[in-house]
């Protein structure tokens, strides 16, 4: 059976959920071989094996952290040459897409980004994408070389399928040009304790209607009652009420949760582009004409300052 390379996204060996989704999708095409760069490969291999990785190619070097992107491309290329896979799957993070892009150039292969589904096809893997602010769904294939495909979070439900997950060391030689961009310093983000925006099953977002940074705790409380991530519209972010890392929309994150709650968001195309593929959409807005109501499964026309706290309280009491 053909092997499929899966690039592992992890934090010090703790494998992130999108990678498990990738392993699940990879099994539709072939046998997943994971590529783990950085520390704690043995620890990661247990989880990777549980979700179907037959092998884990591991490499650890200071270069991965000290220089931007390119050393990881060297490693993924080394894995590609060692395995000759049927496809290479990479999580659709900002960095993941850059790694995939450079690999595609190097190995002379086509690339598809931001796939939301993946199936085996007669002429290679078929990737579904959601385009033009999610108004179209396309199905595409790579027609030259080995398909390099980046996959968005929440594209599949991770399914366990125990495999060996044998760790093998991957020899990587770094190119002279791969150490051109130095990471001089790195300031980790403070954890909010909430799920990561793109990976969350439920997202609660606030927009212009929230009226100020001082009112965002209202949105956060609702999110916490549901175990959700917090998002914000561009208007709220541009006004400085919430960090850009939480922005949902064309120039921010694109999310596809089971449930999306928009509070005080009108639903401009900019925002819809980032949330339109959510399974269930709920909105609270005082303007009955707001375009967001065209998308909703359930909408409440009303003042978010009374509706949101009532909703939060009701959820808490129902959850007991």
């Amino acid at each position, binding site marked *: 059976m053909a092997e499929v390379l899966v690039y592992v996204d992890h934090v010090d060996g703790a494998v992130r959920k999108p990678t498990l989704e990738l392993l699940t999708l990879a099994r539709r095409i072939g046998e997943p071989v994971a590529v783990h760069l950085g520390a704690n490969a043995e620890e990661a291999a247990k989880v990777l094996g549980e979700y179907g990785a037959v092998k884990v190619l591991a490499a650890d070097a200071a270069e991965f952290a000290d220089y931007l992107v390119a050393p990881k491309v060297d490693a993924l290329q080394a894995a590609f040459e060692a395995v000759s896979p049927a496809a290479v799957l990479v999580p659709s993070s900002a960095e993941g*897409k*850059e790694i995939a892009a450079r690999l595609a*150039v190097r190995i002379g292969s086509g690339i598809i980004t931001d796939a939301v589904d993946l199936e085996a096809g007669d002429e290679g893997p*078929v990737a579904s994408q959601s385009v033009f602010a999610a108004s179209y769904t396309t199905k595409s294939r790579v027609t030259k070389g080995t398909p390099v495909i980046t996959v968005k979070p929440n594209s599949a439900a991770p399914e366990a399928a125990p495999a060996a997950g044998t760790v093998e060391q991957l020899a990587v030689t770094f190119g002279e040009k791969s150490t*051109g961009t130095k990471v001089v310093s790195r300031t980790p983000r403070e954890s909010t304790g909430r799920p990561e925006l793109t990976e969350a099953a439920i997202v609660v977002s606030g927009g212009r209607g929230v009226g100020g940074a001082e009112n965002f705790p209202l949105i956060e409380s609702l999110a916490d009652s549901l175990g959700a991530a917090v998002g914000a519209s561009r208007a709220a972010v541009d006004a400085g009420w919430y960090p850009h890392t939480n922005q949902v929309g064309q120039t921010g994150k694109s999310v596809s949760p089971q449930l999306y709650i928009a509070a005080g968001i009108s639903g401009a195309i900019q925002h819809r582009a980032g949330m339109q593929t959510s399974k269930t959409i709920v909105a609270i807005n005082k303007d009955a004409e707001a375009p967001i*109501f065209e998308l909703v499964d359930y909408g409440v026309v009303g003042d978010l300052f009374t509706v949101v706290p009532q909703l939060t309280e009701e959820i808490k009491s129902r959850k007991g």
Partner: protein
Amino acid sequence: MSLRIVVCVKYVPDATGDRHFAEDLTVDRDDVDGLLSELDEYAVEQALQIAEEADDAEITVLTVGPEDAKDALRKALSMGADKAVHVEDDDLHGTDALGTSLVLAKAVEHIGYDLVISGMASTDGGMGVVPAMLAERLGVPQVTLLSEVAVADGKVTGRRDGDAASEQLEASLPAVVSVTDQSGEARYPSFKGIMAAKKKPVQTLDLSDLGIEAEEVGLEGSWTKVDEAAERPARTAGTVVKDEGEGGKQLAAFLAERKFV
């Protein structure tokens, strides 16, 4: 010596318009108004600011696209770029990201550069991969997704805000930079700028000028193929209620019914 900055920009269908696919499943660029991609305005802005800081700099704005793409170049020139290069060739129709990065790389080398700046992604295809591809093809450092950027003493420095961390980056020129929409509001062209842009040189190049074969680009030369493009069915209209004092509770009941609570 003059700092040579090349800004790569894209002419895209207006995202607020009704965007469609043409019969060959390429982006329909005829039936919808086009404009300079909003995300590329940030690149033009940062190029202008870097040029203002430098003793001597020249900004060339570069695009690959059909005849109308000149509008995007004019906009960048009216913002303050010095000259423009338009790569236009019938054989380019349907070119994918790999092909586009090839054309841009050849054009950038043809123009001569110390610094290439682009936006973080286009607002139509939106892959966000061209800057990384360009760095790979040119064999120069990739300093991308910056929300702050500066050039001094032959080095480019900047801040890259990722999900897990914020990183301070540094690379020697020549380099490829991309900037995000957090890098700073783009200026509006002044009346004077708009008038001056009309006199600024726009050079047109075709594939043969860049030594690229027609087979390497276009729909036929593409490394990927779109087999299907289906309009997403409109979401079925849901229930919208007016809050009469119980709106929050009604919403909670809906969420409970859908098993979210």
